[in-house]
């Protein structure tokens, strides 16, 4: 039905599960390719000029997050995007593209500048996840992410978000609350890394490919689910093969979206943005009476068990109750 709504063909769906798994994992690898173009690489190709800004005005500057002004095909924009490194040295400096709280606070600053000076915002999402270390927690990574999301939901200027590589969970959505969300063909977007998901649900990170498939994290899957609005095809083997061509294709889409969003009054824009995110999530409303859990086993049941003659006949395998091993409501992890 989703396919039909979007005018897509079911035949495009991979048919064989094993193939699908390998194909999905291949995409995850492409999304993580070290030679994949990053925020500043793409901007260098597509923008007439770039002026980067630095610092969150509270703690420091985060090299994992790039923010600033750029002119794309004559249109002035504010850009925000995670920045991974091209080699090990740069990756150490840029913390493998995992921003600390100051990175997200710099992003908030940039977006508020955009609002104040009437510039649209273009965000480039490419992040394994926000930095998970103690210093990140001490400085309030959760607060920075939540504030960044909040800023985007009320920002009175158009926002275009592009998932260019890894769309990793909270660290991604923090700068991805766009009026329109675009993804590169081999980008992925998920609520948790496939390794993390596999470690929790399959109890081994070896099942990461299975988890990636189950979460439907590819750009095309996300397009079907409606989380992504447009997918931009990558040249050749992938974006890493041709930075210039990838940037050229993205630029055409960005320019078209900028021109489409520019005339919309900000009240309408905000209302539409609210509706867009308000509508995500599949649920139903049922009226049947709620399920009742079995009553907790009290002392009386226990005594009855002891007196139950079958207990002594059937032996240990069926005696007692499973609640000895598995008291779910009482368990304290």
């Amino acid at each position, binding site marked *: 039905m*989703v396919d039909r709504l979007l005018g897509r063909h079911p035949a495009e769906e991979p048919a064989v599960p094993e193939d699908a798994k390998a194909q999905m994992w291949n995409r995850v690898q492409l999304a993580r390719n070290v030679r994949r173009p990053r925020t500043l690489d793409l901007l260098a190709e597509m923008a007439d000029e770039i002026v980067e800004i630095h610092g969150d005005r509270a703690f420091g500057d985060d090299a994992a997050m790039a923010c600033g002004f750029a002119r794309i095909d004559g249109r002035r924009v504010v850009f925000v995007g995670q920045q991974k490194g091209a080699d090990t040295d740069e990756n150490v400096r840029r913390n493998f593209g995992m921003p600390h709280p100051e990175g997200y606070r710099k992003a908030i600053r940039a977006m508020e500048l955009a609002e104040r000076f009437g510039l649209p915002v273009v965000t480039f999402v490419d992040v394994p996840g926000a930095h998970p270390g103690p210093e990140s927690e001490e400085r309030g990574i959760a607060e920075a*992410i939540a504030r960044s999301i909040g800023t985007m939901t009320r920002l009175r200027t158009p926002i275009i978000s592009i998932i260019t590589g890894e769309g990793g969970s909270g660290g991604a959505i923090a700068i991805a609350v766009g009026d329109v969300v675009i993804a590169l063909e081999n980008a992925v977007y998920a609520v948790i890394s496939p390794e993390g998901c596999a470690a929790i649900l399959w109890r081994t990170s070896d099942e990461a490919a299975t988890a990636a498939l189950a979460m439907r994290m590819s750009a095309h899957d996300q397009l079907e689910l409606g989380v992504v609005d447009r997918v931009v095809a990558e040249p050749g083997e992938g974006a890493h093969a041709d930075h210039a061509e990838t940037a050229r294709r993205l630029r055409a889409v960005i320019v078209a979206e900028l021109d489409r969003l520019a005339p919309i009054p900000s009240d309408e824009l905000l209302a539409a943005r609210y509706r867009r995110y308000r509508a*995500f999530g599949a649920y139903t409303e049922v009226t049947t009476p709620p399920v009742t859990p079995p009553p907790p086993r009290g002392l009386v049941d226990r005594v009855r068990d002891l007196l139950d003659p079958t207990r002594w006949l059937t032996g240990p395998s069926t005696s007692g109750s499973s609640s000895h091993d598995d008291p779910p409501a*009482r368990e304290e992890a």
Partner: protein
Amino acid sequence: MPIKLPSFRPRKDAYPADLWTKCPSCSEMLFNKQLDKADRVCPTCGHHFRLSAEARIALLVDERSFIEADAGLQSVDALGFVDQKPYPDRIAAAQLATGMRDAAIRGTASIDGHRVSMCVMDFAFMGGSMGAVVGEKVTRAAEQALLERIPLIIVSASGGARMQEGTFALMQLAKTVGALERLRVAGVPFISVMSDPTTGGVFASYAVLGDVNIAEPNALIGFAGARVSAGTIAQELPPGFQRSEFLFEHGFVDRVVTRRALRGEIAQLLRYLVPSPNHPAPIEGRSLFDPIGFLTSLADKVVPDMGLSDETAPRPGEGLSAAVPPARAADREATRG
């Protein structure tokens, strides 16, 4: 499992788990009924055990003042997610174990006579994870608070976003925070209460954004799981890392409050956090009830100029897949397309 012969000698390791609970902090064996009577706080050392949403509501609100809303909301398996078992089976098992439909209860109540909109989470239901239903209930609680201009109180207990709902779970961060931003603009207060645990996407969205943030003592509160932190950065974590007191020390929690004092503290705050009368009424008269949110988002693309007024009316073909129970495979197909 070996046969346990009846014994009258009290041996601590033989206490049945459904009658007794061992306090993880002081190792005292506690009789469950007494523990429940003490609001699940260890009488010996003050350790705060997890509390069900039902018990939490009873603890916080004026007697018989809670009126539940949206009790029938239930998640739909939009992704066709199967890990070691299918997601609908997991939901069914959690429903059977807890008697809840999902991990949150919302409604209105009065606290010391102040009418409030409330949403309370329950960790026992799939780790309190936030999927479409939790996100929807939090959002509706915020929207009702905005509409009636009454304070919003959210009690969190969650491991984070629900993986089985994929990016839809992630989108709940934007959905809930968007609703809270409207409260902020309109001058309607929001008190966030964090209990053990409040982590991941729940902490990084509405839980951390309270006008006043309250945490129960020693609750685990953090963005990344401690194992993720330790694994990713390969360094020793400081003692007390991601506990309420750690958050307090670093300025992200206003007050660490024991369960016994919680109701009084909230009532006290409500006397200061009065919805401001100077602000304009909510801008949009949008319907609170949007029964088929997910499909609406898809329909938005097909029918670009969908007016606000007909949003609640199901279009032909939409109603089918959203209205039937999600547990049957055929329906999952329909939702997946």
